[in-house]
């Protein structure tokens, strides 16, 4: 598989009024064609800086960023603009032109690449259909909800048939249900168009839901990178552990006890899973850590629990949670 992006020893130092701040420190990674690549980290870790080096919205201080083998830093202004036609981007704040209608916004990207007016209109209509907003074509963005605005931004970004879509906290301003819908849409587009997607987020659930691989950024460093299921079930770095086990978990009652992580991604109804488990199966689980929040009555977050010892009971408990729509993954607490 081709590498879409290849970063080698990337450093980024901001200089403002004599003050220096290094936001990226020796980051090397590759993004492969067709995958959904997640970049997760705390606020201020350097995620946005990193993603902005991928289309050279930010110049690197040293190291190289290549796009299909081409060093972005070597491109002249015109060549860079050309390359940017293949690298679309969506943002947390949507960044639509408020004074233009939905369809005019979608047409903008096509206009930039010089698509003739009639073709432009047709293509924009198709894109709005794909994102499910055909009937809003002539509305102004101010009349749309956050989720709808992001759909318009996605339509605008994808109208030019880019090779990659960069998403900088694209769902962070949206509630869990709408986030789920947008992520489903991205997943669908990734599969149907073989579109490579890079997703920046500070939310575990986003990565868990659609990413194939994930990089964890901590204080400008690449702390860990790998398949999502590997990184999340057996985190190695301190930063990864902090993300996976957000609050200090209690020690399991048995060092060999099986520990699983339940993730509520907001799509489950507000059901008291643990007490239901006890009531319906008589099994008891030990809650080691819970980091859940309720947004609009919808559970959102994760819980680390220790399962009962007998293998049969474990399976019963896991099946019970899965049947309830929770994602269940085994974790190892070493340390």
């Amino acid at each position, binding site marked *: 598989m081709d590498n879409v992006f290849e970063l080698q020893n990337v450093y980024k130092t901001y200089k403002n009024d004599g003050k220096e701040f290094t936001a990226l420190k020796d980051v090397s990674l590759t993004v492969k064609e067709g995958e959904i690549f997640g970049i997760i980290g705390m606020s201020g870790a350097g995620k946005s800086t990193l993603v902005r080096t991928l*289309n050279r*919205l930010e110049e690197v201080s040293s190291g190289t960023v290549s796009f299909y083998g081409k060093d972005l830093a070597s491109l002249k*202004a015109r060549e*860079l*603009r*050309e*390359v*940017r*036609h293949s*690298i*679309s*981007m969506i*943002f947390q*704040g*949507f*960044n*639509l*032109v*408020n*004074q*233009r209608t939905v369809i005019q916004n979608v047409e*903008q*990207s096509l*206009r*930039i*690449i010089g698509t003739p007016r009639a073709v432009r209109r047709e293509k924009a209509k198709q894109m709005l259909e794909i994102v499910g907003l055909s009937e809003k074509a002539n509305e*102004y*963005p*101010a009349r749309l909800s956050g989720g709808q605005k992001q759909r318009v*931004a996605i339509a*605008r970004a994808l109208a*030019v048939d880019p090779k990659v879509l*960069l998403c900088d906290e694209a769902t962070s301003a949206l509630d869990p249900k709408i986030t789920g819908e947008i992520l489903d849409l991205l997943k669908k587009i990734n599969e149907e168009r073989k579109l490579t997607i890079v997703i920046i987020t500070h939310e575990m659930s986003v990565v868990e839901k659609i990413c194939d691989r994930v990089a964890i950024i901590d204080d400008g460093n690449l702390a860990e990178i790998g398949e999502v299921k590997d990184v999340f079930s057996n985190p190695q770095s301190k930063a990864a552990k902090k993300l996976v086990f957000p609050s200090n978990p209690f020690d399991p009652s048995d060092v060999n006890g099986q520990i699983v992580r339940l993730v509520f991604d907001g799509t489950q109804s507000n059901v008291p899973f643990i007490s239901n488990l006890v009531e319906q199966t008589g099994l008891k689980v030990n809650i080691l850590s819970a980091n859940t929040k309720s947004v609009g009555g919808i559970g959102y977050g994760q819980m680390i629990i220790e399962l009962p010892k007998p293998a049969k009971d474990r399976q019963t408990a896991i099946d019970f949670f899965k049947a309830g729509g929770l994602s269940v993954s085994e974790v190892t607490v070493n340390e």
Partner: protein
Amino acid sequence: MSDYIKDAIISGVWETFVMTFFASLFSYLVGMPLGVILYSTSRGRLLENRGVNFVIGAIVNITRSLPFLILLVLLIPFTRFVVGQSIGTTAAIVPLTIGAIPIVARMVESSLNEVNPGIIEAATSMGASPIYTILHFIIPEATPSLLQGGAINVATVLGYSAMAGVIGGGGLGAIALQYGYYRYQKDVLWTTVTLLIIMVMLIQELGIRLSKKTRKT
């Protein structure tokens, strides 16, 4: 009020209108591009250029800080050079335009500054050139604010045009000065002042309505 004065007032309204219209038009033709340059060459903007920004900024600040009456007098030779005479309605358009250009430039700059930087980032990420971004993203997004600023600028020009009466500029200002001040005809003074106020209010109202109508947020 004699018929003679009534006629003078009517043609005064017309002259004021002509002066305000053309001076506003010309000052935007120059001031708008200057405002765009001031905006786009300032720090962190698309065409950042400290030298250009400093020079244009300095010229704008100096012209803007001169009291308009002083500017009127200073510009007499220049006006004579441009229109062949230094008094009359046509001649007054020259200093009015020059006086309004820096005001327009700063007003345009501040309207453009209000545009969400995210939109510029989006345009850049789509591969738009700086000029394209300014023409097709920034200016359209700033339109309601530009119109609102436009109304304020036109009203300012109208106020200045009354001052141009002092050096023989014609219009309502000249009438107010001649009949109201030198000959002390209070009714003429109050009539012209009222007409000036009405004209300013009409312009403001029109500007606010246009701005509201175009604002989609």
